[in-house]
Every structure is written in structure tokens, then in C-alpha cells.
């Protein structure tokens, strides 16, 4: 299992290939399910130039690792990789890659979806939009489901 946060530009497939070579026994997994998340154009604020993603060094990794371990416990999978970019990024930049290796593809699909749902909804990241004038605007709610993060935190607390 590998969880990494990077401030550098993310090459998702380089990460997958490197980790597979390093950590997976050759010829044992039947497949890998990968999700690559990319920064979209902004639909609402047309004067937004870039996004700055804040995180809590140490805590963010720990909680992602825990969710990957949950996935390893829940499904019959061989290994997981998460590399997440933080800091300033612009539309079309890859933000995150999740890869799940398994002998059984159903399990890798389910596990990969579980991990990316956590990352997108509940992981300790904070989005800040930066306008063309250089002003910062903190995003208040998760774009997909504003209630999810809070519900999960209440459950955890």
C-alpha cells in the first residue's frame, strides 16, 4: 500500500507503472482498476484562474491509509496506490490517481470506487479558488454532496 501527497505535477500513469514494478509480484494480478481525477474548467466563476488545495500533512495521509486498509479488509484485492496532488493547480492538471490491483476485477472496481469516494468527499483537503485578480476564495462545500463530509465526521467523532 502506498499513499503519497505531492506538490509537484502529477504523472498518474508513471506512478502506476513505477509502483506496479516495485510492489506487485509479476503475473499474479489479473488486472488493475485506475481512477484519474483531473481539474475541470470552472463553470460558475469565470474569473477563476487556478485552485489551491490545502491539506494537513500527516493527518491527511494517515486517514487515506486507513481507508485503503479498510478496502484491503473488505475486498479481495492485492494492493492499492493513492497519489494526490496539493498546492496550486490549473484546469486539465491531474489531481489524483487511485489504483487497485486484484485477481478479481469486481473487487478492484468496488475498492477503487470506495477509495475515490472517500478522497473526493471526506478526506482532509480544502479547496481554495484563486481569481484572475489573485484573490482567494475558500470553497465551503464539497461539490458532489455537501452533506457527506459532515455526516462522515459526525459518525467518526
Amino acid at each position, binding site marked *: 500500500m502506498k499513499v503519497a501527497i505531492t506538490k509537484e505535477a502529477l504523472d498518474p500513469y508513471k506512478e502506476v507503472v513505477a509502483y506496479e514494478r516495485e510492489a506487485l509480484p509479476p503475473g499474479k494480478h489479473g488486472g488493475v482498476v485506475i481512477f484519474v*481525477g483531473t481539474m475541470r474548467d470552472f463553470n460558475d466563476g469565470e474569473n477563476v484562474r487556478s485552485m489551491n*488545495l*490545502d*491539506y*494537513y500533512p*500527516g*493527518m491527511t495521509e*494517515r*486517514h487515506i491509509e486507513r481507508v485503503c486498509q479498510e478496502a484491503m479488509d473488505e475486498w479481495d484485492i492485492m494492493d492499492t496506490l493513492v497519489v*494526490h496532488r496539493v498546492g496550486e493547480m490549473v484546469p486539465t492538471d491531474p*489531481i*489524483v490517481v487511485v489504483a487497485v490491483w486484484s485477481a478479481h476485477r469486481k473487487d478492484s472496481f468496488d475498492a477503487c470506487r470506495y477509495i475515490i469516494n472517500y*478522497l*473526493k*468527499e*471526506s*478526506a*482532509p*483537503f*480544502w*479547496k*481554495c479558488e484563486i481569481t484572475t485578480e489573485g484573490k*482567494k476564495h*475558500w*470553497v*465551503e*462545500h*464539497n*461539490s*458532489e454532496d455537501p452533506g457527506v*463530509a*459532515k455526516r462522515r*465526521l459526525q459518525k*467518526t*467523532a
Partner: protein
Amino acid sequence: MEIKVRYFASLRDRLGRAEEQVSFDEETVTVADLWQRISDEPIADNILVAVNMEYTDTSHRLKHGDEVAFFPPVTGG
């Protein structure tokens, strides 16, 4: 006891600092007590707290060397 306090995202911007050390002479200190030392305002309903990188609540009792973090709701990656 010495407590390390960290702030993230909009809360860090609002307080104007990313982290600080706070000292207490008292033996019994909760997260709520810590917040009173940090700010004159009551803690906002949506502010989350973590002690040593685990989510908790303001009734959590602190011990020497704890790292306490306050932050707004996470928005995901």
C-alpha cells in the same frame, strides 16, 4: 502543559497564523478551554477539531505534548 495548535484553510487565514504553542498551568484542560485561550469568539458550529490527527470534539481532555488542529469542513480532493 504545552499544546501545539494548528489551523487550516479559511480558519488559518482568519486567525492570521498557521500554528502556535499554548501553555497551561492547569492540570485539566479540554479542547474548549484551549479555544477560549485562542479566540474571544465562541467556536463556530462547523469547525472541526482533531487531537493528534484524530477527529474528536471540544470535550476532549488534553495532555502535555498534544497536537490540536482546528479547521473548517473538509471539501475533499
